[in-house]
C-alpha cells in the first residue's frame, strides 16, 4: 500500500474528508518524511507550532462536517512568502533572522479560507535569483533524483526546495514563485508539475519581491489536477495589490476544454538548436495534441537571446530598486565587519549573484543609460507583448520544452553569468508577456532524468491551459520519483 504521504493532493483530500486519516496523524507522518529527507536540505524552517494548531482546527472541522476545500492538507511554502510570526528569509543572510510581521495574501487565504496546513518554509535561490538553488544562504537544496546516477543534482531554481520537496513526498503541494521560470524549470528538473498563472492572477502582497512586473505566485504539485485544485484557492483579486487583476475566477479543477480543433504552435526555429533527447520529448507532446485532434502549426519566434536580453535588462533594474529597501534600519542583519561609511552594512550581506544583478540594474537605470537601456527595455517588452497578442489570435497554445536540458550536477560550474542565464531560455517568455504557463513531466532525457514540456496560452486563459496539461499528463508515459523509487 502507498504511504499516505506519497499520495497526490486530490487523493489525500478525499481520504481526509472521509475521515480515513486524521489531519494530526498525517501531519506527524509528513514531519517524519521531512526528517528522513534532511539530506535534501529543502526545509529551512519548520513551522510545527502553527501546523499543529491548524491541524487541530482541521480535525474539528472535518468531524463537524464543515471541511474547507483544502482541509488538513500539509503544504510547503517557498521562503519568500510572509507567514506571520515565522521566519521569512528569502534565503538571504540579510533576512536570516527576519520574522514576518504580517501574512501574505495568498497564505492567509490558504490557511484561513481553504484550511490548508503550513508545515514549513522551503529553500530557494537568494531573493529568487538563480536557476539551481545554489545561491541560498542555507546551502543548496538537492534534487531527489540524485539517487539515479549517484551524483548530487540541482533541483533547479529558484523554487528548488519547493520542487524537490514535492517530488520527494515531504508535502502535497508547495508554493513557489515564478519571475522567469522559477517554478517551471525546477518542476522540469524534479519531474513534477509547475504552474504559473497569468500575471495579476494572484496577489503579490506579502511575497518578498524580486522583479515586481514579472513576479507571480506559482504552485508545484505531483499532478496537474493537484495544481488546478491549489490554484483555484490561490487566484483572486486583491484590492491591496495595485497590479492584481479584476477578472472572473476560473474553475481549474473542473477545466475540461477539448483540444479538438485547437491550434497548437511550436517554434520550429528553436528545434534545431537543442539536444536531440529534448527534441524527442517535445515531438512526443506535439503528437499527443495531434492525436487529440489539434492542429499543429510551426511558428517563428525570435532567437532565445532576444527574449533573455529584455528579461535580464528589466529584472535586474527592478531588482536593484526592490532591494534598495534592505537598509538595515527597520529590520535586516548587518555585517560585523568595519567596511567604512560609504557602504551599507546590510547590503554587504547580499550574495554574489544578487550583488551582480544590483550592479547591472544600477548601470541600466543610471541617467546616462536610461534611454538606451532601461527605457528601451520597456519599449521592447511592449513590442514583444504586441507580437504575442497578435499570435494568440491565431494560435491557442504554444508548446516547447521547459528547459533545454535535464537536471545538472551540483558541482557543475558556469563559465560566466550569461551561461547560467540560458537556463531560463524557454521560460522567461511567459513572464515577459504575462501569460499563464505550466511545465508537465513528459519523459526523460539522455541520462534518464525527468524532462518537462512547457505549455503557454494567452493571458487569463488558464482553463484552456490546464485542460491541455491534463491531456498531456494522461498520455505522457512518465513515472514520478515516488513511484519510480518507493511505490513500485
Amino acid at each position, binding site marked *: 500500500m502507498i504511504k499516505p504521504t506519497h499520495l497526490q493532493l486530490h487523493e489525500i483530500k478525499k481520504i481526509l474528508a472521509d475521515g480515513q486519516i486524521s489531519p494530526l496523524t498525517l501531519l506527524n507522518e509528513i514531519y517524519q518524511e521531512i526528517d528522513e529527507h534532511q539530506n535534501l536540505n529543502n526545509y529551512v524552517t519548520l513551522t510545527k507550532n502553527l501546523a499543529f494548531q491548524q491541524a487541530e482546527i482541521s480535525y474539528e472541522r472535518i468531524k463537524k462536517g464543515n471541511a474547507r476545500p483544502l482541509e488538513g492538507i500539509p503544504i510547503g511554502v517557498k521562503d519568500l512568502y510572509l507567514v506571520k510570526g515565522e521566519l521569512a528569509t528569502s534565503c538571504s543572510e540579510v533576512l536570516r533572522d527576519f520574522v514576518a510581521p504580517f501574512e501574505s495574501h495568498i497564505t492567509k487565504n490558504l490557511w484561513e479560507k481553504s484550511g490548508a496546513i503550513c508545515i514549513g518554509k522551503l529553500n530557494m535561490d537568494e531573493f529568487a535569483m538563480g536557476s539551481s538553488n545554489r545561491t541560498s544562504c542555507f546551502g543548496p537544496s538537492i534534487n531527489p533524483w540524485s539517487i539515479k546516477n549517484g551524483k548530487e543534482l540541482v533541483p533547479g531554481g529558484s523554487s528548488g526546495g519547493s520542487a524537490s520537496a514535492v517530488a520527494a513526498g515531504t508535502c502535497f503541494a508547495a508554493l513557489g514563485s515564478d519571475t522567469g521560470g522559477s517554478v517551471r524549470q525546477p518542476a522540469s528538473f524534479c519531474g513534477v508539475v509547475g504552474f504559473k498563472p497569468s500575471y495579476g492572477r494572484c496577489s503579490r502582497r506579502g511575497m518578498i519581491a524580486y522583479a515586481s512586473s514579472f513576479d507571480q505566485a506559482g504552485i508545484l504539485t505531483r499532478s496537474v489536477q493537484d495544481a488546478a485544485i491549489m490554484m483555484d484557492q490561490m487566484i483572486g483579486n486583491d484590492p491591496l495589490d495595485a497590479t492584481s487583476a479584476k477578472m472572473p475566477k476560473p474553475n481549474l479543477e473542473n477545466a475540461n476544454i477539448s483540444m479538438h480543433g485547437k491550434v497548437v504552435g511550436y517554434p520550429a526555429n528553436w528545434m534545431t538548436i537543442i539536444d536531440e533527447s529534448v527534441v524527442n520529448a517535445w515531438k512526443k507532446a506535439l503528437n499527443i495534441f495531434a492525436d487529440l485532434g489539434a492542429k499543429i502549426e510551426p511558428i517563428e519566434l525570435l532567437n532565445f537571446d532576444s527574449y533573455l536580453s529584455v528579461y535580464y535588462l528589466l529584472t535586474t533594474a527592478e531588482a536593484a530598486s526592490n532591494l534598495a529597501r534592505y537598509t538595515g534600519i527597520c529590520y535586516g542583519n548587518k555585517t560585523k565587519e568595519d567596511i567604512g561609511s560609504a557602504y551599507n552594512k546590510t547590503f554587504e550581506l547580499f550574495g554574489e549573484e544578487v550583488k551582480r544583478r544590483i550592479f547591472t540594474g544600477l548601470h541600466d537605470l543610471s541617467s546616462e543609460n536610461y534611454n538606451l537601456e532601461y527605457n528601451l527595455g520597456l519599449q521592447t517588452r511592449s513590442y514583444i507583448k*504586441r507580437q504575442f497578442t497578435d499570435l494568440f489570435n491565431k494560435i491557442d497554445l504554444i508548446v516547447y520544452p521547459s528547459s533545454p536540458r535535464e537536471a545538472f550536477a551540483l558541482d557543475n560550474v558556469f563559465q560566466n553569468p550569461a551561461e547560467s542565464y540560458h537556463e531560463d531560455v524557454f521560460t522567461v517568455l511567459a513572464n515577459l508577456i504575462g501569460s499563464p504557463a505550466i511545465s508537465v513531466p513528459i519523459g526523460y532525457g539522455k541520462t534518464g532524468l525527468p524532462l518537462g514540456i512547457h505549455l503557454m496560452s494567452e493571458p487569463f486563459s488558464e482553463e484552456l491551459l490546464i485542460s491541455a496539461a491534463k491531456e498531456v499528463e494522461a498520455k505522457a508515459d512518465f513515472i514520478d520519483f515516488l513511484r519510480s523509487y518507493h511505490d513500485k
Partner: protein
Amino acid sequence: MIFKIESLSLKAKIRVLERDKLEADLSNMMELIHEIQFVGTSNESVYSYKTSEYRDDDPVNIIQDENFDPFLNASHVEDNMFEVEGVIESD
C-alpha cells in the same frame, strides 16, 4: 564595455572586492542584454486587464487592528524610534 565601477559601487553603497571579476561579469551580462537592440519597440501598455488601481481614503491603524509591531525586527529602538547606527548628517 567600460563600467564606472567606483561610481556604481558608491551609488549602490556596496563594496566591490573583486573589481576585475565584476567588470568581466558585467561585460558578459551587458553583451547578452545588448541583444535587445535587434528586437523592436512599441509604446503600448503591458497591462491588458483591469487592475486594482485605487483605494478609498480610509486610514487603518494596523498596530491595533492587525496586531502589528513596527519594532519586531529592529535592532536599536529608543522612545518608539528606530536608532540609526552612526551619526547621519541632515539632508
